[in-house]
């Protein structure tokens, strides 16, 4: 960077000149600071989720169902009704809440270890039943909370604490592309995959979350937004390298975009 010797602009207080604030540091629904590692993508996903709830004006009737993972610590700082349930069971608990309180906006927040390892059957059955809930999957390819072990979504070649030489298909099996599987199922209203490694990616992912909630509010069935998040600690890379590693490894296996747009039938069309 060449501007090193150029004068630093004071940033300790709002500007003296007339100016308009265009972005808050964090949404007002966040009550404090989180304790996650430097360079983690999950707090970014949390911010756009909370902002979306505010923009849709559904905060008062939102209920979050949170699984177990690093993001579990968010329950202390998000000013939303939250149920924290057993590992992987969030979609089933969300089913119960939504059936008892159909007027609510119910979402799950789960990691890849939680949704795809521990609770694979819950999410698939919830999707197949066409439950009118929104699942948010924070996919970083490792069990971050327990120390960085391999999960079912770890991509081939990725190094984790339990696949130190890289995931090998012969020894460890192949990754499970959960969003692609669910996008093919009937009973599904909307499925998309975003990433929070770049500013543009954050904006696109936020739109996906909004679309998923709109699908739920319109009663279109199960919606899922998979968000690829950085875990530099679990990936053995530095924090600034996180977005590049995400783009080079995970995005190659898990392409971004709408996988099941609103209003589309499942590819095989059964029951539609």
């Amino acid at each position: 960077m060449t501007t090193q010797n150029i004068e630093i602009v004071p940033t300790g207080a709002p500007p003296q000149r007339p100016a308009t604030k265009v972005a808050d540091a964090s949404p007002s629904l966040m009550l404090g600071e989180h304790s996650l590692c430097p360079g983690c993508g999950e707090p970014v996903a949390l911010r756009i989720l909370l902002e979306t709830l505010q923009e849709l004006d559904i905060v008062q009737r939102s209920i979050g169902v949170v699984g177990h993972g690093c993001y579990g610590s968010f329950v202390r700082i998000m000013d939303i009704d939250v149920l924290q349930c057993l590992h992987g069971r969030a979609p089933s608990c969300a089913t119960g809440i939504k059936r008892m309180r159909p007027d609510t906006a119910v979402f799950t927040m789960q990691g890849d270890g939680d949704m795809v390892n521990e609770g694979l059957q819950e999410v698939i059955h919830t999707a197949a039943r066409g439950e009118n809930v929104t699942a948010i999957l924070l996919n970083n390819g490792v069990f971050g909370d327990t120390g960085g072990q391999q999960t079912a979504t770890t991509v081939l070649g990725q190094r984790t604490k339990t696949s130190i030489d890289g995931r090998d298909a012969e020894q460890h099996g192949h990754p499970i592309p959960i969003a692609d599987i669910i996008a093919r199922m009937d009973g599904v209203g909307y499925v998309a995959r975003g990433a929070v490694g770049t500013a543009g990616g954050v904006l696109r992912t936020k739109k996906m979350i909004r679309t998923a909630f709109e699908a739920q509010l319109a009663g279109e069935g199960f919606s899922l937004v998979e968000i690829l998040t950085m875990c530099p600690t679990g990936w053995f890379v530095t924090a600034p390298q996180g977005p590049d590693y995400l783009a080079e490894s995970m995005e190659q296996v898990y392409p971004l975009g709408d996988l099941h747009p609103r209003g589309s039938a499942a590819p095989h069309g059964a029951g539609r």
Partner: protein
Amino acid sequence: MTMSARGTLVIDIDKCKGCELCIAACPPDVLTMSATVNETGYRYPELHDGCTGCTACQLVCPDHVFEVYRFDRSRAKPGT
């Protein structure tokens, strides 16, 4: 100095964990990491002239340290 900032930031340096994601995300390339550290021992971003108020740093920041302002344009051109 010919650059003119269209926007500016308020940076809560003590919340920063020094991940440097904002440095790469900044389109006009006007953020650099500090030489000194904050109260928790992390280097933090510093702003130079030329901010456009695009909010890219705020979007990628995991620790929510950036507040973004755009200067009102009703007055004489800034920087002149």
